[in-house]
Every structure is written in structure tokens, then in C-alpha cells.
């Protein structure tokens, strides 16, 4: 299935608005894992589709993913 930029933008908006309402509804602490997961998904969508890492060597995506895991791990453990 070919994913176009418009559907990526739609997904990004859904994830952004979703994370906003998650945090508004019951506070961020209960939904920390969801919020971080949404961040990771959004970053991956941007780098893979908007920045076209889908056509690049897999190592670039691997390096970025590793950085994101470190970021998520620290943010999760410190909150």
C-alpha cells in the first residue's frame, strides 16, 4: 500500500490532538507511556515519510531510532 504525505499528516494531527486530550483528561502521569509512544510514532512518521528516510540506508533509521529509545527511556524513568 502506498502511503502519501497527506495521510501521514492526517495521522500526525490525530496523534498530536490525541496526546493533548489524553493529558488534559486524566493528567499526564497516568498516560506517560501513551504520550511517549505517540511522540516516538510522530517522529518516526516525519523522518520516514517527510524526510524520506524510507529510501535511505537502513542505518540512518537505526541510529535515529536508537536516539529516540534513549530519549524515551530517560523521560519515562525521570517522570
Amino acid at each position, binding site marked *: 500500500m502506498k502511503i502519501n504525505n497527506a495521510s501521514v499528516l492526517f495521522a500526525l494531527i490525530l496523534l498530536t490532538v490525541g*496526546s493533548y486530550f489524553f493529558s488534559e483528561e486524566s493528567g*499526564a502521569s497516568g498516560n506517560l507511556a501513551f504520550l511517549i509512544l505517540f511522540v516516538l510514532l510522530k517522529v518516526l512518521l516525519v523522518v520516514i515519510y517527510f524526510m524520506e528516510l524510507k529510501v535511505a540506508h537502513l542505518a*540512518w533509521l537505526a541510529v535515529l531510532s536508537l536516539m529516540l529509545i534513549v530519549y524515551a527511556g530517560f523521560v519515562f524513568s525521570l517522570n
Partner: protein
Amino acid sequence: METINHKQFFYPPGGILIWIIILVEVITFSAGIIAFAWEGSLSPEVFEASQGMLNTKIGLVNTLLLLTSGFFVAEAVRFLKAGNTIKSQQWMWVAMLLGVGFLVLKGVEYVGKIQHGFDLSHNTFFTYYWLLTGFHFLHVLTGLVILLMLTLKMRQGVYHQSNSLDIETGGAFWHMCDLIWLLLFPVLYLI
């Protein structure tokens, strides 16, 4: 016609140099965010009270502005590669307009904070808030200048279907501003 094989490690879309810059920037901002979260774990009351002073609605709208702007830049690159320079230029202008919208809203937020006395030295939360969002603000401003210069050159006919690398590179810089904001927004405003 350019025939770059992006599957080769040294030729990612936009060129290797911009990707090295992107990685360094992501590491730098992530380190700042981690330091912010660390300080927050040491004085949770101060951070929770200070976070309550931020306008999450402005943060949300700004996130949507940057993401939509990123979409238009991605489309502009796609149109240029397809040979449609007119459409590419139009999409670049829309992307820049949205970027300006981000800066204006951020400016409104900054003025409000200063008026209420939440400046750089108010407390640790606001020191990090100003440093992290301030540096990001400067990146967006730089990104806008880059997009403007590229669009003006595209108008002069410098960039076209067979010469699009600079547009891809500028676009990658703009998307990096998206990425950094995506990492900053939840930590500063939501968590």
C-alpha cells in the same frame, strides 16, 4: 538528471552533511530535555506549578502549525522532483506562512510570560523553558530564512527537476525543527 542512489549510506536524502547536523541537533536538544526532566524529578512541585502557567492550547496549535508546514515542504520537494516548479514554489510559500504563524504565536506566548514575570531567572523550570524554546525559536527563524532563499532561487530558475538537492537539504533542516518541537512539546507542556 541526478541519479543518486539514496540506499548508499553516504547519500541519504538531502545529503550526509545535513543528516550529521540533524543527529547532532537531536542529541543536543535531547540532552537538554533529559536535564530538564532530571531537574523536574528533583523539585516536582516547582515544575508542576510552573508547567501550569504554560498555555497548552498555544503549544498544541504551534505543533499543528509546524507539522502542517512540514507537510507542505515535503510536498514542495515532491512537486519539484516531478518537474512542477510553480506548484513547488506555492507550497514553499504556504510552508513559510505557517512557520511565521508558529513564530508569531510563540512571540505572543513569550510576551505573556515576560509580562507575568516568568523570565529566565524566575526558577529552574523557566530557565530551561526559555533556553530550550528560545534555541528552537532561533532554529525556526533560520529555517525560514533558508526556505525563503531557496524559494527565491527556485523562482529564478536555479532549482528544477534535475537540480533539487539543495531544496531537499533545506527541507530536511525544516523537518528537523519539527522533530525538535515534537520532542520538546510533550515534556514542557504535557508531562
